[in-house]
Structures are given as structure tokens and as C-alpha cells.
């Protein structure tokens, strides 16, 4: 594997537009990694609480219940 200095030298040889595209890609991959870590943590908790096997329909019903509860509270009739 290249050292950080070697890698930096390669990057500085790129055109500015290519450098920007590279930086954008690195940011996107770092964001994805963060989301995957969060998904792993969330799924592990759901598994511990025996909620991971809930059907999509059950999940949707619960999300609907939460949505209407918040909306009724914030925008009372």
C-alpha cells in the first residue's frame, strides 16, 4: 500500500476537476460508511428486542401511527 505522502503526490498530479471529483467520492464513501455503521447498530438493537423480524406492513403501520400522533399534536383540528 502507498504511503500517505505517495498518495498525496499522486493526487496533486491530477487536474483540479479530478481532484474535486476524488474529494467528493471520498466524502460520499465516508458518509456511506457512517450510515452502514448506524444501520448495523440499529439492526443489532432490533434483533435484541425481537423486532427485526417484524413485517414491512407492521413497520409501516407503526410509522403511520407515529406520524399521525405527531401531526395531531402539532396541528390540532
Amino acid at each position, binding site marked *: 500500500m502507498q504511503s500517505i505522502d505517495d498518495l498525496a503526490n499522486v493526487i496533486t498530479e491530477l487536474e483540479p476537476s479530478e481532484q474535486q471529483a476524488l474529494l*467528493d467520492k471520498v466524502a*460520499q464513501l465516508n458518509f456511506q460508511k457512517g450510515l452502514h455503521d448506524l444501520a448495523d447498530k440499529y439492526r443489532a438493537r432490533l434483533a435484541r428486542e425481537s423486532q427485526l423480524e417484524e413485517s414491512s406492513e407492521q413497520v409501516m403501520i407503526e410509522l*403511520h401511527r*407515529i406520524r399521525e400522533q*405527531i401531526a395531531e399534536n402539532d396541528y390540532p383540528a
Partner: protein
Amino acid sequence: MTTPPERWLLDTNVWIFGLRRDDEFPTCAHLLDRIGTFSVLIPLQVLKELNLALASDEMRDFYRLVNQYPEFIGLSWEPAPTELVEFYEQRGCRKGDAVIAAHAEASGTRTIVSANRQFLQTIKDLPVELVTAEEAQSRLAEFLP
């Protein structure tokens, strides 16, 4: 960082099915993986819903992540205007869905991505459009190299 060309409002169900990696809605996870090629608005109603669906430490991780990438994700703490909520309710949306549509219109976000069938069927010929995660993914394929 370059700002992505399109901004979409991802409904709470897209976030939740994506994070759960739900087998019935695999495209939700695929779409979350593409954030950065498009940017995302998270309005107050979705934040409140996520706050109830996720545990406090998960929500903390979520905020830490989105705050690191403001070019990708924008949080809006503004309540949706009441008159717009009423506008969408009068056109057949349930109140909660009307709040989401009102958030989108008030923030200038034209597209809502949702897996909620009833919501998807309600909004037609209105200032905001609703698309499924599959339609959103197809759209990405059109504007990305």
C-alpha cells in the same frame, strides 16, 4: 465539496426501511447508499418521527453523521406552514402526510421519495411530486454519468 444537482425529501419510511435493510424494500437501502449523488432535506416532521423510531444513541450518531456532511443533508427545524398543511389535507392527504408535503413545498423541494402507497396515490397534479424509491433510483441513473 460539490453540491449535488438534485435535492429530495426522503420520507421516514425510506430511512427506516433502508436502515433496517428491509427485504421488501431493498431499494430504500440502495438509495441511502447513493446520498451524495443527490442531496436530502430532512424536515422537522421526519426528524420527530426518526426520534421516536430510533434509540437515543442511534439518533445521536445520526445527527453527528448528518452534521458532518451539510452538502449532502440539510436539516430544517421550521414547522410546516399551517395553511399549506390544510391545502394538502383538502386534497386528500392524511394530516401527517399533508405535513410532509407542506414541508417539501415550503422548502422548495419538489420531490418526495416514499414507500407509503396511500401517500403516493394521493398527490397528483400538485406543486410537489411523490416518487417511489425505485423511480428515484431510475432518475439517478438518468442524470449520473
